[in-house]
């Protein structure tokens, strides 16, 4: 059996190599339905950034509404009649149902279609084969298929704004019964079904990607590249893929059950006794249509995915940061094994903390205790990462290029957002803070912020491998400082209004006496947010201008160590024109006193004195 399998193996490779022999030349196979990981990575990246633009605009609308609920929206109200009422001499006012759609879709698009995509599918696809030393991913056809499946998801979720009574409006978390009962909120008509379908597309795409990532990293590493010699970017992609493969099925199952509850009369999540608008929901036989289901079940299943999901968003940024910091401070990563261990611990623990989203949900208080334990514990490996980064920077030699600023920004946000997690993880104080803007501050700083800054840093760093050019460093720095200051300006004050009791997802907070004095803070936040949004124009200009007219990049413009810097910028079809390099060390050999230069690339022959990694 062995010999015949070997022959089968060989013959399969013959077939693949033969197919792979000819780089595609027609535009459609080269740039549209491509199987090349670099093209696919860029496709994912650009699509995700466009989705970010849309979700960002949604956030601007939310912020203006929160600061000035009475404002006359004027021209915007006229252009978006589905969201506003007014005209004929009346001021344009936002509809509450539109507001609900805004925060639902902002969250859904940002979490899944932007921040699970740009760092993971975008940079993962671009970098994994280059960093492991392979010609392409393990399954190039599946890779191309995964992008177009993702694209279908994007189309579906965006279309949902224009169908029926509008897009889903039950929050990105889609808690039933609100999301299950079509009469509970307009977005729970066909819009919520579109949400479910878009999620199915997304999850299918992410699963295909995950299979590719995991297989490529395990099977296609070049000679000498043991797991403990991989750059942390690779480790993060590896762990993220495993998290996705194990956690997303919970949401798949839950989405199917939600679909059945919505359209086929089942009662997975719908309890007995539902009364909508003072009318009991009974069928022809006088009995309740839905019986015996549990809304808590949805929450358990959703957050079983949801918690690992937020680490999926964050881990790649942590990986990028280690690679960026070391490259631009010319010093080896401090505590490589501890950093890997910390990422593994974070990933593992992420599976047992999901209940901290449900402390006040009515779940068993003893169960809540168990979740509090894991939640507080997960702060330990997170802190270890911060300490190791600080130790890396200590007695280093920092070059202030754009990627470095973003890397340091990730460290800053990770500290801020991580610390507020300690507030929320204690179950009793969480009683006061749950579903307030304190939570919004926490996750925007640590998850969204770290992921976003990671993406910007990675873009500046690996732009040469995407387009063969460098991004403009001056524009990059302006973009960074504007973003950094206004990001904190937007999200840090949310801690204060959250502590003061400002709830989430509120169309008009000033209905409440106890929130009226928070208006100035809401104004400050909104103005910061508007400037934050406007600042991204600098990035878009820099990105597109540099892609076409930027300074041409050499093989290794940053004098970095990874295998991706041993080939041209951008790499050719097949990544290396000749043989794939072999690896002799870890990727963090910087400032070794016995080396001729302040960096020793992974593939260079062994030195007299090496770090032993």
């Amino acid at each position: 059996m062995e010999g015949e399998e070997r022959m089968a193996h060989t013959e399969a490779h013959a077939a693949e190599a033969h197919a792979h022999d000819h780089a595609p030349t027609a535009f459609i196979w080269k740039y549209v339905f491509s199987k090349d990981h670099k093209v696919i990575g860029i496709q994912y990246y650009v699509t995700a950034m466009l989705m970010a633009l849309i979700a960002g605009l949604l956030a601007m609308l939310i912020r203006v509404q929160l600061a000035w609920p009475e404002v006359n929206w004027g021209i915007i109200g006229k252009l978006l009649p589905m969201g506003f009422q007014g005209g004929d001499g009346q001021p344009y006012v936002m509809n509450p149902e539109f507001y609900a759609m805004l925060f639902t879709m902002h969250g859904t698009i940002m979490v899944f279609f932007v921040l699970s995509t740009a760092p993971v599918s975008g940079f993962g696809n671009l970098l994994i084969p280059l960093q492991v030393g392979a010609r392409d991913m393990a399954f190039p056809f599946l890779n191309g298929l995964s992008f177009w499946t993702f694209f279908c998801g994007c189309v579906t979720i965006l279309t949902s704004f224009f169908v029926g009574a509008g897009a889903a409006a039950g929050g990105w978390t889609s808690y039933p019964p609100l999301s299950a009962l079509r009469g509970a909120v307009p977005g729970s008509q066909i819009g919520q079904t579109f949400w479910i379908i878009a999620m199915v597309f997304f999850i299918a795409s992410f699963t295909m990607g995950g299979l590719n990532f995991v297989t490529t990293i395990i099977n296609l590493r070049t000679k000498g590249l043991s797991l403990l010699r991989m750059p942390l970017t690779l480790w993060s992609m590896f762990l993220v893929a495993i998290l996705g493969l194990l956690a997303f099925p919970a949401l798949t199952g839950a989405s199917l059950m939600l679909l059945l509850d919505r359209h086929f009369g089942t009662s997975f999540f719908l309890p007995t006794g539902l009364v909508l608008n003072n009318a009991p929901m009974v069928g022809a036989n006088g009995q309740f249509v839905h019986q015996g289901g549990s809304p808590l079940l949805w929450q358990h299943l959703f957050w079983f995915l949801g918690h690992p999901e937020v680490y999926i968003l964050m881990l790649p940024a942590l990986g990028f940061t280690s690679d960026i910091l070391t490259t631009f401070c010319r010093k080896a990563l401090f505590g490589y094994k501890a950093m890997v261990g910390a990422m593994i611990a974070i990933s593992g623990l992420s599976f047992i903390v999901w209940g901290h989203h449900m402390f006040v949900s009515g779940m068993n208080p003893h169960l809540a205790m168990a979740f509090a334990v894991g939640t507080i514990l997960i702060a330990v490996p997170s802190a270890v990462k911060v300490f190791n980064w600080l130790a890396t920077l200590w007695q280093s030699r920092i070059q202030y290029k754009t990627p470095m600023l973003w890397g340091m920004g990730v460290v800053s946000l990770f500290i801020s957002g991580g610390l507020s997690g300690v507030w929320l993880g204690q179950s009793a104080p969480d009683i006061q803070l749950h579903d307030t803007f304190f939570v919004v501050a926490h996750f925007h700083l640590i998850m969204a912020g770290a992921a976003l800054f990671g993406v910007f840093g990675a873009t500046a760093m690996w732009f040469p491998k995407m387009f063969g050019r460098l991004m403009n460093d001056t524009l990059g720095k302006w973009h960074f400082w504007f973003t950094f200051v206004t990001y904190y300006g937007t999200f840090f004050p949310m801690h204060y209004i959250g502590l003061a009791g400002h709830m989430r997802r509120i169309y008009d907070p000033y209905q409440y006496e106890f929130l009226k004095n928070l208006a100035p803070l809401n104004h400050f936040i909104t103005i910061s947010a508007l400037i934050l949004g406007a600042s991204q124009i600098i990035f878009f200009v820099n990105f597109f201008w540099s892609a076409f007219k930027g300074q041409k990049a050499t093989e290794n413009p940053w004098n970095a160590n990874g295998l991706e810097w041993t080939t041209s910028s951008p790499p050719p079809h097949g990544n290396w024109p000749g043989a794939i390099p072999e690896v002799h060390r870890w990727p963090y050999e910087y400032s070794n006193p016995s080396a001729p230069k302040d960096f020793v690339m992974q593939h260079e022959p062994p030195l007299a004195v090496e770090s032993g990694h």
Partner: protein
Amino acid sequence: MATEILDARAPGRIPVVERPDGPAGRGPIAHGDDGGGPSAAFDPAQFGLWAFLGTVTMLFIGFTSAYIVRRTGMDWRPLPLPRLLWWNTAALLLSSVALEVARRRRAALDLSGLRVWLGATALMAGLFVAGQFQAWRLLRALGFFLSSNPHSSFFYMLSGVHLFHLGGGLVWFALVLYRLRGARYAPAAGGRTLSLFATYWHFLGLLWVYVLFLIFVF
């Protein structure tokens, strides 16, 4: 001393480099050169398939936990098990057996034997699919629909999701059959594809047994 590193997928090159003394000492190299560990000699497609099976398993673990929690509800009314389901199960398991025999016939280069047993696999698979639809019809005739009660909801949903994955398997089976009859390949061709498919098919069989056990025996 390592010889020149030939890459199986370098453009313009024919792959197949015997490296009996390679790091893993296990034969020809995989897509790249050997990686850091013995897993490099492991077929990527096999690895990818097992990872996918892990994902499908997690899906059914999710359903299982939902089912176990729901069963404690006071309104639980058990669903009668149509006897047909036992026959369907037998058909599916027999199809796996037939598939294994087919693999061995192929390895022995017995093409006619291969055809016969693949035919048997297809027949058993077809019986299973038809039987599942019939079982649903039987339950509906008895008045048990998707929304009738939680037990029926879970049964229809789990058997439906299983059948959906089986449907994907059938598409794959068609692809395997196509590959196996390709004249441009040597008789030894298609072995890898058939092996991979067999892994998935056996998994589906075991998964069905599990679903049956969970819904009706547990």
